[in-house]
């Protein structure tokens, strides 16, 4: 769970960069989905 939390936090930061670049927002659920996919990947 600790590793997952670290991935989730990092995914949040990276997604925030994309959000600023694309001038769009990400819902928490979409960040969670990307985080889970990344952890499995």
């Amino acid at each position, binding site marked *: 769970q600790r*590793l997952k939390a670290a991935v989730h936090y990092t995914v949040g930061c990276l997604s925030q960069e994309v959000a600023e670049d694309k001038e*769009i927002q990400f*819902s928490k659920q979409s960040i969670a989905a*990307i985080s889970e*996919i990344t952890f499995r990947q």
Partner: protein
Amino acid sequence: ETVNKILHLHFRDDKTKISSDALLLMAEMLKVFVREAAARGARQAQAEDLDRVDIEHVEKVLPQLLLDF
């Protein structure tokens, strides 16, 4: 270090080692993966004239994303 620990979660043999180059590459690949997932989600949302990426936008791009990586 976090990527290292995650990889070791999945190694069948505890004695398996990974070089720092391989680790760096894996960490970089994961960053590219995250940025690509987020960017595709954003494109999907913008294609639907929305200014917020929601979970179904990620759902729609997921199959192709997994095929591409």
